[in-house]
C-alpha cells in the first residue's frame, strides 16, 4: 500500500533534518521524500499534514505492562494500544510482573505476545532473581532472549555488593542497569518530606533517600566502569550528582517523568491518591532543577513510568493506596505544554529526548527518516489544544491526575511495522 504524508514538517535531529516536504511510504518503507510523481500521488492514500510534524517514532523506556500477573490492570496489548494512542512506536516494559521477568521464558512470552503490533515491546530483565536483591538473575540468558536493560524497578538493588556484580556482569551485554534510586530505610512514607507533608500529617520520603543511592550507583559505576541509568529522577541534588558524573565521563544516564517536571507536592493537599507516586512529587525547587537538567542534557530522556492500578486499589485511604499513575497517553501533551510552549526545550530537543536518546541508552537501532528506511514515525500536532479524558484512554487503568486538564500538543498518528494508528484506528499500510 502507498501512502503520502503531505506537506509535513520533517524533523529528524540525528541527521539534522528539518524541512517541509511530502513523504511517500510504500508497504511500510519510506520510498521517497519529495520528488513524488503525479502518478504516485494518484495511486496513494493522501494524508493532509499541513502544520503537523513527523519525527522518528517516540520510545518510552519505562512502562509497567502488568502482564503476566495483573491483566486486570493492563495487558501487553492494551498497554501497547495506549502507547500507540499516546504517540509511541516502542516501549520498554519493567520486570515487576508476576512472575517477574527473571527468566528467558517470561521474556519470550512478552516478545511473542507483542509480535504483530505496531508498537515494539522490549522487556527489561530483573537485575536479581524475583527482584529480591539476593542473587543476580540469568542476565545473559535474558539478554539473549531479548531483554535490553536490567532493573529491580519498584525496588532499589538492595546491597552494594549485588549492585557491583550486576553492573560488572551487564558489561558483557553493554545493556544498562536501570536503578530505582531509593534508600529503603528512609523511604517509609507516602509523599515528599517537606513543609507540605508536615501540614498534611503524611509520613514523608526525603529527597536524600534518592540522592544517597544516586551517589552510590554513580560511584560504583565509576569503580567498575559499568553503565547505570537513573530511572525517574526527582530531586535537585540527584540532578546535580548526575551532571557532575557526566562531566567526569562516568557512564550514567537519566530519565524524568512528565509528572516530576509538571507537578509539585502541593498537589497532595487534596489527598487525591492519583497524586501518590514513588518517587513522590517534590518541591518547586526540584522541578526547576529538573527542567534545567533537561535543558543542559543532564537528563537524557523523558519516560512515563506508566503504572496502571485498578480503581479499587487506587481509590483507597491515602497511606494504603499504591504508588503510581498511568502516563502513556498524556506525556507528549505534558511535555509540549510544560517544556516546549514554555520555551525550555525546542521541538528538536524534545524529539531527541523522546525518540533518540532512550534508544541510544538501550542500544536499540535509531529509526531515521531517510529513503529506504522502515517507516517508524510519530506525527505530532504541537499546536493542538485538547482536554484529557481518561475515560477514553486505551489503557485499561484510569489512574491519572490529569483528567480534564487542558494540554497543548498531541500525537495524531504513529506508523511502524507497516501499520498506522490514526483517528483512533489501527490499519495496515
Amino acid at each position, binding site marked *: 500500500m502507498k501512502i503520502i504524508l503531505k506537506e509535513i514538517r520533517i524533523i529528524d535531529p540525528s541527521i539534522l533534518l528539518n524541512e517541509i516536504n511530502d513523504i511517500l511510504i510504500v508497504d511500510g518503507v519510506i520510498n521517497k521524500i519529495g520528488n513524488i510523481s503525479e502518478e504516485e500521488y494518484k495511486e496513494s492514500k493522501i494524508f493532509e499534514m499541513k502544520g503537523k510534524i513527523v519525527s522518528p517514532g517516540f520510545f518510552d523506556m519505562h512502562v509497567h505492562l502488568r502482564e503476566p500477573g495483573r491483566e486486570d490492570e493492563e495487558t501487553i496489548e492494551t498497554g501497547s494500544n495506549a502507547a500507540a494512542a499516546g504517540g509511541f512506536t516502542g516501549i520498554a516494559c519493567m520486570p515487576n510482573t508476576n512472575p517477574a521477568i527473571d527468566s528467558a521464558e517470561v521474556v519470550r512470552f512478552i516478545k511473542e505476545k507483542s509480535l504483530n503490533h505496531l508498537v515494539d515491546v522490549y522487556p527489561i530483565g530483573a537485575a536479581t532473581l524475583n527482584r529480591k536483591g539476593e542473587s543476580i538473575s540469568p542476565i545473559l540468558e535474558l539478554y539473549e532472549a531479548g531483554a535490553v536493560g536490567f532493573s529491580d524497578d519498584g525496588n532499589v538493588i538492595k546491597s552494594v555488593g549485588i549492585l557491583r556484580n550486576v553492573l560488572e556482569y551487564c558489561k558483557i551485554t553493554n545493556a544498562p542497569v536501570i536503578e530505582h534510586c531509593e534508600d529503603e530505610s528512609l523511604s517509609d512514607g*507516602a509523599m515528599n*518530606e*517537606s*513543609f507540605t*507533608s*508536615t*501540614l*498534611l*500529617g*503524611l*509520613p*514523608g520520603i526525603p529527597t536524600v533517600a534518592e540522592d544517597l543511592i544516586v551517589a552510590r550507583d554513580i560511584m560504583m559505576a565509576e569503580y567498575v566502569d559499568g553503565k547505570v541509568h537513573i530511572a525517574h529522577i526527582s530531586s535537585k541534588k540527584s540532578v546535580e550528582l548526575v551532571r557532575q558524573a557526566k562531566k567526569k565521563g562516568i557512564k550514567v544516564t537519566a530519565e524524568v517523568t512528565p509528572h516530576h517536571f509538571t507537578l509539585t507536592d502541593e498537589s497532595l493537599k*487534596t*489527598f487525591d491518591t492519583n497524586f501518590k507516586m514513588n518517587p513522590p512529587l517534590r518541591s518547586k525547587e526540584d522541578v526547576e532543577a529538573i527542567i534545567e537538567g533537561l535543558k543542559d542534557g543532564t537528563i537524557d530522556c523523558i519516560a512515563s513510568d506508566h503504572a496502571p492500578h485498578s480503581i*479499587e486499589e487506587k*481509590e*483507597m*485511604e*491515602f*497511606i*494504603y493506596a499504591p504508588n503510581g499513575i498511568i502516563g502513556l497517553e498524556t506525556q507528549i501533551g505534558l511535555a509540549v505544554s510544560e517544556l516546549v510552549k514554555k520555551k525550555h526545550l525546542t521541538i528538536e530537543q524534545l524529539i531527541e529526548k523522546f525518540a533518540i536518546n532512550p534508544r541510544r541508552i538501550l542500544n536499540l537501532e535509531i529509526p531515521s527518516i531517510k529513503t529506504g528506511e522502515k517507516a517508524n514515525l510519530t506525527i505530532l500536532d504541537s499546536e493542538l489544544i485538547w482536554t484529557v479524558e481518561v475515560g477514553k484512554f486505551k489503557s485499561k487503568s484510569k489512574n491519572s491526575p490529569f483528567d480534564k486538564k487542558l494540554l497543548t500538543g498531541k500525537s495524531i498518528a504513529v506508523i511502524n511495522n507497516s501499520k498506522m494508528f490514526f483517528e483512533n484506528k489501527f490499519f495496515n499500510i
Partner: protein
Amino acid sequence: MALSSKHLLGLYGVPKEDIQLILDTARTFREVLERPIKKVPTLQGKTIVNLFYENSTRTRISFELAQKRLSADTINFSTSTSSTKKGETFKDTVRNIEAMKVDMIVVRHQSAGVPQYLTKISNANIINAGDGLHEHPTQGLLDMYSINEKLGKLEGLNVCIVGDVAHSRVALSNIFGLKTMGANVSVCGPATMIPIGIEKLGVKVYNKIEDAIKYNNVLNVLRIQLERDAGRRIPSLREYHNYFGITTERIKNLNPEILILHPGPINRGVEISSEVADGEFQIILDQVTNGVAVRMAVLYLLGTMH
C-alpha cells in the same frame, strides 16, 4: 450564628469566629453536664455513626457520651483491621453505612486525609476524630477550652507542645487552633521528633525542656507513642524522661505558675512524672470533662445546620 462549614475536618484554616462559637457553645453544654439530668433533646432523631478504624477508648467514649447527652441515635463501627486486609473497601463500608440513612459520621483512621475523602463519598456531616498524623480537631478545641477556662484567655499566651510533635495529630490541631486564637505557639522535643518546616507555621522550636518550661504559660505534653515507633527516634524511655520529662522539680525551679495539659493516655514516668500527673499544676481530668462538652458543641452546631 452558624459555622462556616458543614464538616469539622481539622482546625487548619478554620476562622476565629467558628472556633469562638464552638468554645462559647461548649460553655453552655459544660453547664448541662453539671445538672442532675445531663441530657438535652437537641439532636433527637439524628443518627450518628462513630467510624473508628483505629483503637481508641477515650475519644470514642467521649463522642458517644456527647451524642447520648444530645439524644442522638448512635451506632459504633470499630475495627482495627484495615480495609485492605478485611476485603471490603473503605468506600464500600461507608456506602453501606450511608445507605442506612445516617446524618453524621465521626471518623478516626490511621491514614491522613480520610475525613476529606469521606466528604467526597458521603453526604453526611463529617467530624474528624483523628486522621493519621494529621489532625485531631476536637482535641485541639478541648485543649483551648480548658486553657481558656483556667487562664481566662488564649490571646497572647505562650503555649508549648512537648514531645513527639512529628508523629502527633494533637500537635497540629493545637498549633492551627491556638495560632488562630492569637496565642504564641512553640514546640519542644528531641530533633528526631520535630517535623520539618514547622517554623514556617510561625512556631518557635525549643531544644531544651528547661527553656520550654521557663518561657511558657502552658505546656501541652504529648504522649510518647511507643505504638507509633517512637523507639526509633529516642534511645530509651529513661533517657527521654531524664531530658524531656515534666517533673515537679523542673516546674518548681523554673516556672511554678505553669499550666500542664496532657491529651492522655499518660505514660507515667516517661513524658510526665506521676507527681505532676496527679499534682496541682495539671488539668488533665478537666480536659476529659471538657472534651464531652466541646464534642457536644461541635455535634450540636453541625447537626442543626440548615
